[in-house]
Protein backbone atom coordinates (compact mmCIF):
# COMPACT_ATOMS: atom_id res chain seq x y z
CA UNK A 1 0.00 0.00 0.00
CA UNK A 2 1.28 3.48 -0.76
CA UNK A 3 2.20 5.48 2.32
CA UNK A 4 -0.57 7.97 3.02
CA UNK A 5 0.03 9.95 6.17
CA UNK A 6 -3.57 11.17 6.34
CA UNK A 7 -4.77 7.57 6.49
CA UNK A 8 -2.18 6.74 9.12
CA UNK A 9 -3.26 9.68 11.26
CA UNK A 10 -6.76 8.25 11.59
CA UNK A 11 -5.31 5.40 13.66
CA UNK A 12 -4.11 7.79 16.36
CA UNK A 13 -6.99 9.20 18.41
CA UNK A 14 -4.79 11.65 20.29
CA UNK A 15 -4.15 13.56 17.08
CA UNK A 16 -7.67 14.89 17.12
CA UNK A 17 -7.08 16.45 20.52
CA UNK A 18 -6.77 20.13 21.10
CA UNK A 19 -4.06 21.52 23.36
CA UNK A 20 -4.44 25.04 24.68
CA UNK A 21 -7.15 25.64 22.15
CA UNK A 22 -5.08 24.60 19.16
CA UNK A 23 -4.97 21.23 17.38
CA UNK A 24 -2.18 19.08 18.83
CA UNK A 25 1.06 19.09 16.83
CA UNK A 26 2.98 16.18 18.36
CA UNK A 27 6.69 16.41 17.59
CA UNK A 28 8.03 14.42 20.52
CA UNK A 29 8.12 10.87 19.19
CA UNK A 30 11.84 10.47 19.84
CA UNK A 31 10.85 10.57 23.49
CA UNK A 32 7.85 8.31 23.07
CA UNK A 33 5.45 7.59 20.26
CA UNK A 34 1.69 7.30 20.31
CA UNK A 35 0.01 3.96 19.75
CA UNK A 36 -2.35 3.19 16.88
CA UNK A 37 -5.78 1.67 17.37
CA UNK A 38 -4.86 -1.68 15.74
CA UNK A 39 -2.03 -2.16 18.25
CA UNK A 40 -4.23 -1.25 21.22
CA UNK A 41 -6.99 -3.50 19.90
CA UNK A 42 -4.61 -6.43 19.49
CA UNK A 43 -3.49 -6.11 23.09
CA UNK A 44 -7.01 -5.70 24.39
CA UNK A 45 -8.38 -8.60 22.42
CA UNK A 46 -5.59 -10.80 23.78
CA UNK A 47 -6.17 -9.65 27.36
CA UNK A 48 -9.93 -10.05 27.20
CA UNK A 49 -10.01 -13.47 25.56
CA UNK A 50 -6.70 -15.32 25.86
CA UNK A 51 -4.90 -13.97 28.88
CA UNK A 52 -3.18 -16.14 31.43
CA UNK A 53 0.32 -16.53 32.76
CA UNK A 54 2.67 -18.15 30.26
CA UNK A 55 5.02 -21.12 30.26
CA UNK A 56 3.67 -22.77 33.31
CA UNK A 57 0.40 -24.43 32.60
CA UNK A 58 -1.41 -27.06 30.63
CA UNK A 59 -4.82 -25.41 30.62
CA UNK A 60 -6.17 -23.89 27.45
CA UNK A 61 -5.79 -20.20 28.32
CA UNK A 62 -2.28 -20.79 29.51
CA UNK A 63 -1.43 -22.46 26.22
CA UNK A 64 -3.09 -19.74 24.18
CA UNK A 65 -1.21 -17.09 26.11
CA UNK A 66 2.07 -18.94 25.70
CA UNK A 67 1.43 -19.29 21.98
CA UNK A 68 0.66 -15.59 21.64
CA UNK A 69 3.72 -14.61 23.65
CA UNK A 70 6.13 -16.90 21.82
CA UNK A 71 4.74 -15.98 18.45
CA UNK A 72 5.24 -12.33 19.42
CA UNK A 73 8.87 -13.23 20.05
CA UNK A 74 9.14 -14.71 16.55
CA UNK A 75 7.55 -11.64 14.99
CA UNK A 76 9.87 -9.27 16.81
CA UNK A 77 12.88 -11.43 15.96
CA UNK A 78 12.02 -11.43 12.24
CA UNK A 79 11.43 -7.70 12.36
CA UNK A 80 15.15 -7.19 12.98
CA UNK A 81 16.40 -10.22 11.08
CA UNK A 82 17.07 -12.32 14.17
CA UNK A 83 15.97 -15.77 15.31
CA UNK A 84 13.31 -16.61 17.90
CA UNK A 85 15.66 -17.72 20.67
CA UNK A 86 17.89 -14.69 20.26
CA UNK A 87 15.23 -12.29 21.52
CA UNK A 88 14.71 -11.43 25.18
CA UNK A 89 11.77 -9.29 26.25
CA UNK A 90 12.73 -6.67 28.82
CA UNK A 91 11.00 -3.64 30.30
CA UNK A 92 12.79 -1.11 28.12
CA UNK A 93 16.08 -0.67 26.32
CA UNK A 94 17.56 0.53 29.59
CA UNK A 95 16.97 -2.88 31.14
CA UNK A 96 18.40 -4.51 28.02
CA UNK A 97 21.66 -2.61 28.43
CA UNK A 98 21.81 -3.23 32.18
CA UNK A 99 21.16 -6.92 31.57
CA UNK A 100 24.29 -7.17 29.44
CA UNK A 101 26.30 -5.00 31.84
CA UNK A 102 25.39 -7.08 34.89
CA UNK A 103 25.73 -10.40 33.07
CA UNK A 104 29.22 -9.51 31.81
CA UNK A 105 30.09 -8.44 35.34
CA UNK A 106 28.69 -11.67 36.77
CA UNK A 107 30.70 -13.65 34.23
CA UNK A 108 33.84 -11.91 35.45
CA UNK A 109 34.69 -10.45 32.06
CA UNK A 110 36.06 -7.20 33.42
CA UNK A 111 38.69 -6.09 35.84
CA UNK A 112 41.37 -3.46 36.32
CA UNK A 113 43.26 -2.91 33.07
CA UNK A 114 40.21 -3.79 30.96
CA UNK A 115 38.37 -1.10 29.07
CA UNK A 116 34.77 -0.44 28.09
CA UNK A 117 34.26 1.98 25.23
CA UNK A 118 31.25 4.20 24.54
CA UNK A 119 30.72 7.51 22.72
CA UNK A 120 30.04 11.03 23.87
CA UNK A 121 26.62 10.98 22.17
CA UNK A 122 25.14 8.13 24.20
CA UNK A 123 21.80 8.35 25.90
CA UNK A 124 22.31 8.01 29.67
CA UNK A 125 20.85 4.52 29.37
CA UNK A 126 23.81 3.40 27.29
CA UNK A 127 26.33 5.28 29.42
CA UNK A 128 25.48 5.08 33.12
CA UNK A 129 25.25 1.24 33.17
CA UNK A 130 28.80 1.11 31.81
CA UNK A 131 30.02 3.71 34.29
CA UNK A 132 28.51 1.59 37.05
CA UNK A 133 30.04 -1.61 35.64
CA UNK A 134 33.44 0.07 35.43
CA UNK A 135 33.07 1.19 39.01
CA UNK A 136 32.09 -2.29 40.22
CA UNK A 137 34.89 -4.06 38.40
CA UNK A 138 37.76 -1.59 38.32
CA UNK A 139 37.65 -1.44 34.52
CA UNK A 140 38.19 1.87 32.71
CA UNK A 141 35.53 3.68 30.68
CA UNK A 142 36.71 5.40 27.49
CA UNK A 143 34.80 7.18 24.79
CA UNK A 144 34.88 8.62 21.31
CA UNK A 145 34.34 12.39 21.18
CA UNK A 146 32.24 14.42 18.76
CA UNK A 147 33.04 16.77 15.89
CA UNK A 148 31.47 20.21 15.67
CA UNK A 149 29.01 18.80 13.14
CA UNK A 150 27.80 16.32 15.74
CA UNK A 151 29.45 13.28 14.17
CA UNK A 152 31.67 10.81 15.95
CA UNK A 153 35.27 11.92 15.91
CA UNK A 154 36.92 8.82 14.49
CA UNK A 155 40.43 10.27 14.40
CA UNK A 156 41.41 8.38 17.52
CA UNK A 157 39.21 5.33 16.99
CA UNK A 158 42.21 3.01 16.98
CA UNK A 159 43.52 4.40 20.24
CA UNK A 160 40.19 4.46 22.05
CA UNK A 161 39.11 1.01 20.90
CA UNK A 162 42.18 -1.08 21.51
CA UNK A 163 43.41 -4.48 22.69
CA UNK A 164 42.22 -3.76 26.23
CA UNK A 165 38.67 -3.02 25.07
CA UNK A 166 36.31 -5.78 26.16
CA UNK A 167 33.09 -4.15 25.00
CA UNK A 168 32.22 -1.32 22.63
CA UNK A 169 28.71 0.06 23.19
CA UNK A 170 27.33 2.78 20.95
CA UNK A 171 24.11 4.14 19.61
CA UNK A 172 23.04 3.64 16.04
CA UNK A 173 21.20 6.97 15.94
CA UNK A 174 21.61 9.77 18.46
CA UNK A 175 18.40 10.86 20.15
CA UNK A 176 19.69 14.41 20.64
CA UNK A 177 21.71 15.16 17.50
CA UNK A 178 19.90 12.86 15.09
CA UNK A 179 23.29 11.60 13.90
CA UNK A 180 23.31 8.11 12.43
CA UNK A 181 26.59 6.34 13.04
CA UNK A 182 28.42 4.15 10.59
CA UNK A 183 27.96 0.89 12.46
CA UNK A 184 30.12 -1.09 10.01
CA UNK A 185 33.25 0.97 10.68
CA UNK A 186 32.81 0.75 14.42
CA UNK A 187 32.08 -2.97 14.41
CA UNK A 188 35.06 -3.62 12.15
CA UNK A 189 37.38 -1.95 14.63
CA UNK A 190 35.82 -3.84 17.56
CA UNK A 191 36.34 -7.10 15.72
CA UNK A 192 39.99 -6.28 15.08
CA UNK A 193 40.59 -6.07 18.81
CA UNK A 194 38.19 -8.84 19.80
CA UNK A 195 35.77 -6.60 21.69
CA UNK A 196 32.09 -7.43 22.00
CA UNK A 197 29.71 -4.89 20.46
CA UNK A 198 26.40 -3.63 21.78
CA UNK A 199 24.33 -1.28 19.66
CA UNK A 200 21.58 0.90 21.11
CA UNK A 201 18.93 0.82 18.41
CA UNK A 202 16.26 2.77 20.32
CA UNK A 203 16.21 5.53 17.69
CA UNK A 204 16.86 3.28 14.70
CA UNK A 205 14.41 0.36 14.83
CA UNK A 206 11.28 2.55 14.83
CA UNK A 207 12.37 4.51 11.78
CA UNK A 208 14.34 2.41 9.29
CA UNK A 209 14.93 -1.20 8.28
CA UNK A 210 17.38 -2.89 10.65
CA UNK A 211 19.03 -6.24 10.11
CA UNK A 212 21.08 -7.41 13.06
CA UNK A 213 22.90 -10.06 11.02
CA UNK A 214 24.22 -7.65 8.45
CA UNK A 215 25.15 -5.20 11.21
CA UNK A 216 27.16 -8.11 12.58
CA UNK A 217 26.95 -6.99 16.22
CA UNK A 218 26.87 -9.12 19.36
CA UNK A 219 24.01 -7.36 21.15
CA UNK A 220 21.30 -5.11 19.84
CA UNK A 221 18.81 -3.34 22.10
CA UNK A 222 15.65 -1.33 21.50
CA UNK A 223 12.45 -0.23 23.16
CA UNK A 224 8.78 -0.68 22.32
CA UNK A 225 7.25 2.62 23.36
CA UNK A 226 9.14 4.55 20.66
CA UNK A 227 7.79 2.27 17.91
CA UNK A 228 4.02 2.41 18.40
CA UNK A 229 3.93 -0.19 21.19
CA UNK A 230 2.97 0.40 24.83
CA UNK A 231 5.38 1.42 27.52
CA UNK A 232 6.81 -1.44 29.53
CA UNK A 233 8.40 -3.58 26.83
CA UNK A 234 11.93 -3.56 25.45
CA UNK A 235 14.08 -6.02 23.57
CA UNK A 236 17.56 -7.42 23.81
CA UNK A 237 18.77 -9.35 20.82
CA UNK A 238 21.94 -11.36 21.25
CA UNK A 239 23.96 -13.49 18.88
CA UNK A 240 24.96 -15.95 21.60
CA UNK A 241 22.92 -15.31 24.69
CA UNK A 242 23.57 -18.78 26.07
CA UNK A 243 27.14 -17.71 26.73
CA UNK A 244 25.98 -15.21 29.35
CA UNK A 245 25.17 -16.04 32.96
CA UNK A 246 21.85 -14.77 34.32
CA UNK A 247 21.09 -11.22 35.38
CA UNK A 248 17.96 -11.37 37.56
CA UNK A 249 16.99 -14.55 39.37
CA UNK A 250 13.48 -15.87 39.87
CA UNK A 251 10.65 -17.86 38.38
CA UNK A 252 10.87 -19.10 34.76
CA UNK A 253 14.60 -18.52 34.38
CA UNK A 254 15.54 -21.70 36.20
CA UNK A 255 16.04 -25.33 35.29
CA UNK A 256 16.20 -26.94 38.74
CA UNK A 257 15.95 -25.22 42.10
CA UNK A 258 17.11 -26.60 45.40
CA UNK A 259 17.57 -24.61 48.55
CA UNK A 260 21.31 -25.14 48.19
CA UNK A 261 21.57 -23.89 44.63
CA UNK A 262 19.95 -23.68 41.22
CA UNK A 263 20.69 -24.29 37.58
CA UNK A 264 19.36 -22.04 34.86
CA UNK A 265 17.26 -22.40 31.74
CA UNK A 266 18.74 -21.71 28.33
CA UNK A 267 18.23 -18.32 26.66
CA UNK A 268 15.92 -16.52 26.19
CA UNK A 269 14.08 -17.78 29.32
CA UNK A 270 17.24 -17.43 31.39
CA UNK A 271 16.93 -13.66 31.08
CA UNK A 272 13.19 -13.36 31.68
CA UNK A 273 12.88 -13.82 35.43
CA UNK A 274 9.36 -13.70 36.77
CA UNK A 275 6.15 -13.17 34.89
CA UNK A 276 7.18 -11.48 31.65
CA UNK A 277 5.65 -8.48 29.93
CA UNK A 278 3.04 -10.69 28.30
CA UNK A 279 0.41 -8.45 26.78
CA UNK A 280 2.99 -5.77 26.03
CA UNK A 281 5.00 -8.26 23.97
CA UNK A 282 1.84 -9.16 22.07
CA UNK A 283 1.28 -5.46 21.43
CA UNK A 284 4.88 -4.95 20.32
CA UNK A 285 4.45 -7.70 17.75
CA UNK A 286 1.31 -5.95 16.52
CA UNK A 287 3.33 -2.74 16.26
CA UNK A 288 5.97 -4.55 14.19
CA UNK A 289 3.22 -5.80 11.90
CA UNK A 290 1.81 -2.30 11.62
CA UNK A 291 5.20 -0.83 10.75
CA UNK A 292 5.88 -3.65 8.30
CA UNK A 293 2.60 -2.98 6.58
CA UNK A 294 3.52 0.68 6.16
CA UNK A 295 6.97 -0.37 5.02
CA UNK A 296 10.11 0.75 6.80
CA UNK A 297 11.54 2.19 3.60
CA UNK A 298 8.41 4.27 3.11
CA UNK A 299 8.58 5.44 6.70
CA UNK A 300 12.21 6.44 6.33
CA UNK A 301 11.46 8.34 3.11
CA UNK A 302 8.49 10.07 4.70
CA UNK A 303 10.52 11.14 7.70
CA UNK A 304 13.41 12.28 5.57
CA UNK A 305 11.10 14.57 3.65
CA UNK A 306 9.81 16.08 6.89
CA UNK A 307 13.29 16.40 8.36
CA UNK A 308 14.56 18.12 5.23
CA UNK A 309 11.62 20.52 5.33
CA UNK A 310 12.36 21.32 8.96
CA UNK A 311 16.13 21.73 8.47
CA UNK A 312 15.56 23.95 5.43
CA UNK A 313 12.99 25.99 7.29
CA UNK A 314 15.21 26.54 10.30
CA UNK A 315 18.10 27.53 8.04
CA UNK A 316 15.92 30.39 6.82
CA UNK A 317 15.20 31.65 10.32
CA UNK A 318 17.47 34.18 11.94
CA UNK A 319 18.75 33.37 15.42
CA UNK A 320 17.86 29.67 15.33
CA UNK A 321 20.56 27.06 15.03
CA UNK A 322 20.55 23.29 14.78
CA UNK A 323 22.79 20.98 16.79
CA UNK A 324 23.83 18.02 14.71
CA UNK A 325 23.83 17.19 11.00
CA UNK A 326 22.24 19.84 8.81
CA UNK A 327 21.04 17.48 6.04
CA UNK A 328 19.20 14.15 6.01
CA UNK A 329 22.39 12.31 5.05
CA UNK A 330 23.03 9.59 7.68
CA UNK A 331 20.53 11.18 10.00
CA UNK A 332 17.38 10.39 11.92
CA UNK A 333 14.39 12.62 12.39
CA UNK A 334 15.24 14.19 15.74
CA UNK A 335 16.21 17.84 15.27
CA UNK A 336 17.61 19.73 18.25
CA UNK A 337 17.66 23.48 17.98
CA UNK A 338 18.48 26.54 20.02
CA UNK A 339 16.72 29.88 19.76
CA UNK A 340 19.12 32.71 20.46
CA UNK A 341 18.21 34.63 23.60
CA UNK A 342 15.36 32.36 24.64
CA UNK A 343 15.95 29.56 27.11
CA UNK A 344 14.90 26.15 25.72
CA UNK A 345 12.38 25.72 28.53
CA UNK A 346 10.73 28.96 27.49
CA UNK A 347 10.81 27.87 23.86
CA UNK A 348 9.11 24.60 24.72
CA UNK A 349 6.54 26.19 26.99
CA UNK A 350 5.69 28.89 24.49
CA UNK A 351 5.32 26.35 21.70
CA UNK A 352 3.03 24.32 23.95
CA UNK A 353 0.80 27.35 24.28
CA UNK A 354 0.34 27.01 20.52
CA UNK A 355 -0.44 23.29 20.81
CA UNK A 356 3.00 22.23 19.62
CA UNK A 357 4.69 19.50 21.65
CA UNK A 358 8.49 19.45 21.49
CA UNK A 359 10.85 18.15 24.14
CA UNK A 360 13.23 20.46 26.00
CA UNK A 361 16.12 19.65 28.29
CA UNK A 362 19.20 17.51 27.96
CA UNK A 363 17.23 14.61 26.50
CA UNK A 364 19.07 12.17 28.74
CA UNK A 365 22.26 12.96 26.88
CA UNK A 366 23.74 15.62 29.11
CA UNK A 367 27.33 15.13 27.85
CA UNK A 368 26.21 16.23 24.37
CA UNK A 369 24.83 19.48 25.76
CA UNK A 370 28.07 20.04 27.62
CA UNK A 371 30.05 19.29 24.48
CA UNK A 372 28.14 21.97 22.58
CA UNK A 373 28.13 24.44 25.45
CA UNK A 374 24.37 24.67 25.88
CA UNK A 375 22.41 23.92 29.06
CA UNK A 376 19.64 22.27 27.07
CA UNK A 377 17.99 22.23 23.66
CA UNK A 378 14.52 22.11 22.20
CA UNK A 379 13.99 19.03 20.06
CA UNK A 380 11.39 18.30 17.42
CA UNK A 381 11.09 14.71 16.23
CA UNK A 382 8.65 13.35 13.71
CA UNK A 383 7.25 9.93 13.02
CA UNK A 384 4.80 8.06 10.81
CA UNK A 385 1.86 10.25 11.78
CA UNK A 386 3.43 13.67 11.27
CA UNK A 387 2.70 15.66 8.16
CA UNK A 388 4.03 18.77 6.46
CA UNK A 389 1.47 20.88 8.28
CA UNK A 390 3.11 19.85 11.56
CA UNK A 391 6.51 21.03 10.37
CA UNK A 392 5.08 24.27 9.06
CA UNK A 393 3.26 24.86 12.33
CA UNK A 394 6.53 24.43 14.19
CA UNK A 395 8.43 26.81 11.91
CA UNK A 396 5.68 29.37 12.26
CA UNK A 397 5.59 28.71 16.01
CA UNK A 398 9.30 29.33 16.43
CA UNK A 399 8.85 32.73 14.83
CA UNK A 400 6.00 33.57 17.16
CA UNK A 401 8.17 32.51 20.09
CA UNK A 402 10.90 34.80 18.89
CA UNK A 403 8.46 37.69 18.57
CA UNK A 404 7.03 37.10 22.02
CA UNK A 405 10.38 36.92 23.74
CA UNK A 406 11.94 39.87 21.92
CA UNK A 407 8.91 42.09 22.60
Amino acid at each position, binding site marked *: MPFDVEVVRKDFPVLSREVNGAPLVYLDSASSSHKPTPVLDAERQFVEQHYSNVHRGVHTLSQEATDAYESARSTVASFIGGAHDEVVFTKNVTESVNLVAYALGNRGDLGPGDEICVTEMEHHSNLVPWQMLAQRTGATLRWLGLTDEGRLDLSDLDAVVNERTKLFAFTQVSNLLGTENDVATLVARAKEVGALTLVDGAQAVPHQPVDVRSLDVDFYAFTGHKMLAPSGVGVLWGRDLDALPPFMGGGSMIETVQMTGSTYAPAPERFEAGTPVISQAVALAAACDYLDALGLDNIKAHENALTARLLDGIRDLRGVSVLGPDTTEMRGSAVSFVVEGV*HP*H*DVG*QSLDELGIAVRVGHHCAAPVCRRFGV*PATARASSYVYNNEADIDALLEGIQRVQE*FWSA
Partner: protein
Amino acid sequence: MTESLYQEIILEHYKHPHHKGLRDPFDVEVHHVNPTCGDEVTLRVKVNGGVVEDVSYDGHGCSISQASTSVMTDLVIGKPVDDALTTHEAFLELMHSRGQLEPDEDLLEDGIAFAGVSKYPARVKCALLGWMAWKDATSQALSSDQKKDTA
Protein backbone atom coordinates in the same frame (compact mmCIF):
# COMPACT_ATOMS: atom_id res chain seq x y z
CA MET B 1 0.29 33.69 22.25
CA THR B 2 -1.52 33.32 25.54
CA GLU B 3 0.21 34.37 28.67
CA SER B 4 -1.24 32.07 31.32
CA LEU B 5 2.19 31.15 32.56
CA TYR B 6 4.19 34.14 31.44
CA GLN B 7 2.56 36.96 33.39
CA GLU B 8 3.69 40.49 32.62
CA ILE B 9 5.36 40.72 36.04
CA ILE B 10 7.42 37.62 35.33
CA LEU B 11 8.56 38.93 31.98
CA GLU B 12 9.42 42.27 33.58
CA HIS B 13 11.62 40.67 36.25
CA TYR B 14 13.17 38.35 33.67
CA LYS B 15 14.15 41.19 31.38
CA HIS B 16 15.15 43.57 34.19
CA PRO B 17 16.21 41.49 37.16
CA HIS B 18 16.57 43.16 40.54
CA HIS B 19 19.66 42.90 42.74
CA LYS B 20 21.50 40.80 40.17
CA GLY B 21 25.31 40.55 40.28
CA LEU B 22 27.46 39.21 43.10
CA ARG B 23 28.27 41.73 45.85
CA ASP B 24 30.44 42.03 48.94
CA PRO B 25 30.23 41.74 51.87
CA PHE B 26 28.59 38.36 52.40
CA ASP B 27 28.54 35.58 54.99
CA VAL B 28 27.84 32.59 52.79
CA GLU B 29 27.89 31.80 49.09
CA VAL B 30 26.08 28.78 47.60
CA HIS B 31 25.79 27.31 44.13
CA HIS B 32 22.58 25.51 43.16
CA VAL B 33 21.81 23.61 39.97
CA ASN B 34 18.60 22.27 38.49
CA PRO B 35 19.93 19.09 36.91
CA THR B 36 16.94 18.53 34.66
CA CYS B 37 17.41 21.76 32.71
CA GLY B 38 20.88 22.95 33.61
CA ASP B 39 19.73 26.16 35.29
CA GLU B 40 22.31 27.48 37.75
CA VAL B 41 22.49 30.15 40.39
CA THR B 42 25.32 31.37 42.59
CA LEU B 43 23.92 33.27 45.53
CA ARG B 44 25.33 35.23 48.46
CA VAL B 45 23.69 36.14 51.73
CA LYS B 46 24.62 38.68 54.38
CA VAL B 47 22.73 38.38 57.65
CA ASN B 48 23.14 40.98 60.38
CA GLY B 49 21.42 41.11 63.75
CA GLY B 50 18.67 38.78 62.64
CA VAL B 51 18.01 40.77 59.49
CA VAL B 52 18.66 39.77 55.87
CA GLU B 53 20.98 42.60 55.02
CA ASP B 54 21.79 41.64 51.45
CA VAL B 55 21.20 38.93 48.88
CA SER B 56 23.09 39.01 45.60
CA TYR B 57 23.28 36.43 42.84
CA ASP B 58 24.35 35.50 39.39
CA GLY B 59 23.30 32.65 37.15
CA HIS B 60 21.57 31.60 34.01
CA GLY B 61 18.37 29.83 33.28
CA CYS B 62 14.88 30.13 31.97
CA SER B 63 12.60 33.10 32.49
CA ILE B 64 10.86 31.47 35.42
CA SER B 65 13.99 30.75 37.42
CA GLN B 66 15.50 34.14 36.70
CA ALA B 67 12.37 36.13 37.43
CA SER B 68 11.60 34.17 40.55
CA THR B 69 15.05 34.81 41.98
CA SER B 70 14.67 38.49 41.25
CA VAL B 71 11.28 38.63 43.00
CA MET B 72 12.71 36.72 45.94
CA THR B 73 15.45 39.29 46.54
CA ASP B 74 12.84 42.05 46.64
CA LEU B 75 10.89 40.09 49.23
CA VAL B 76 13.66 39.15 51.64
CA ILE B 77 16.26 41.91 51.57
CA GLY B 78 15.91 44.12 54.60
CA LYS B 79 13.46 41.81 56.31
CA PRO B 80 13.96 40.08 59.67
CA VAL B 81 15.12 36.55 58.92
CA ASP B 82 12.01 35.10 60.55
CA ASP B 83 9.69 37.13 58.35
CA ALA B 84 11.73 36.20 55.30
CA LEU B 85 11.44 32.54 56.19
CA THR B 86 7.68 32.94 56.53
CA THR B 87 7.57 34.44 53.06
CA HIS B 88 9.71 31.56 51.80
CA GLU B 89 7.27 29.09 53.31
CA ALA B 90 4.34 30.83 51.71
CA PHE B 91 6.00 30.81 48.30
CA LEU B 92 6.85 27.12 48.65
CA GLU B 93 3.28 26.36 49.57
CA LEU B 94 2.00 28.34 46.60
CA MET B 95 4.32 26.46 44.25
CA HIS B 96 3.07 23.09 45.47
CA SER B 97 -0.58 24.11 45.31
CA ARG B 98 -1.15 22.99 41.70
CA GLY B 99 -3.17 26.11 41.10
CA GLN B 100 -5.49 25.44 44.03
CA LEU B 101 -4.33 28.26 46.31
CA GLU B 102 -5.28 31.93 46.32
CA PRO B 103 -1.92 33.62 46.98
CA ASP B 104 -1.59 36.23 49.72
CA GLU B 105 -0.64 39.42 47.90
CA ASP B 106 0.33 41.27 51.09
CA LEU B 107 2.91 38.64 51.83
CA LEU B 108 4.12 37.67 48.37
CA GLU B 109 3.73 40.91 46.40
CA ASP B 110 5.09 40.27 42.86
CA GLY B 111 5.44 36.62 43.87
CA ILE B 112 1.73 36.10 43.26
CA ALA B 113 2.47 36.20 39.54
CA PHE B 114 3.89 32.71 39.95
CA ALA B 115 0.58 31.22 41.09
CA GLY B 116 0.07 29.99 37.53
CA VAL B 117 3.45 28.23 37.51
CA SER B 118 2.19 25.84 40.18
CA LYS B 119 -0.03 24.30 37.54
CA TYR B 120 3.07 23.27 35.58
CA PRO B 121 4.90 20.74 37.77
CA ALA B 122 7.82 20.63 35.36
CA ARG B 123 8.42 24.34 35.99
CA VAL B 124 8.00 24.41 39.75
CA LYS B 125 11.63 23.47 40.23
CA CYS B 126 12.63 26.41 38.04
CA ALA B 127 10.60 28.80 40.19
CA LEU B 128 12.15 27.42 43.36
CA LEU B 129 15.81 27.41 42.31
CA GLY B 130 16.72 30.84 43.74
CA TRP B 131 14.48 30.42 46.77
CA MET B 132 16.07 27.13 47.73
CA ALA B 133 19.54 28.60 47.29
CA TRP B 134 18.58 31.51 49.55
CA LYS B 135 17.18 29.18 52.21
CA ASP B 136 20.30 27.05 52.10
CA ALA B 137 22.66 30.03 52.34
CA THR B 138 20.65 31.63 55.12
CA SER B 139 20.56 28.44 57.21
CA GLN B 140 24.31 28.17 56.85
CA ALA B 141 24.77 31.79 57.81
CA LEU B 142 22.57 31.35 60.88
CA SER B 143 24.24 28.18 62.07
CA SER B 144 27.73 29.63 61.67
CA ASP B 145 26.41 32.69 63.52
CA GLN B 146 25.23 30.42 66.32
CA LYS B 147 28.57 28.68 66.44
CA LYS B 148 30.20 32.07 66.79
CA ASP B 149 27.73 32.94 69.58
CA THR B 150 28.31 29.75 71.50
CA ALA B 151 32.08 29.74 70.88
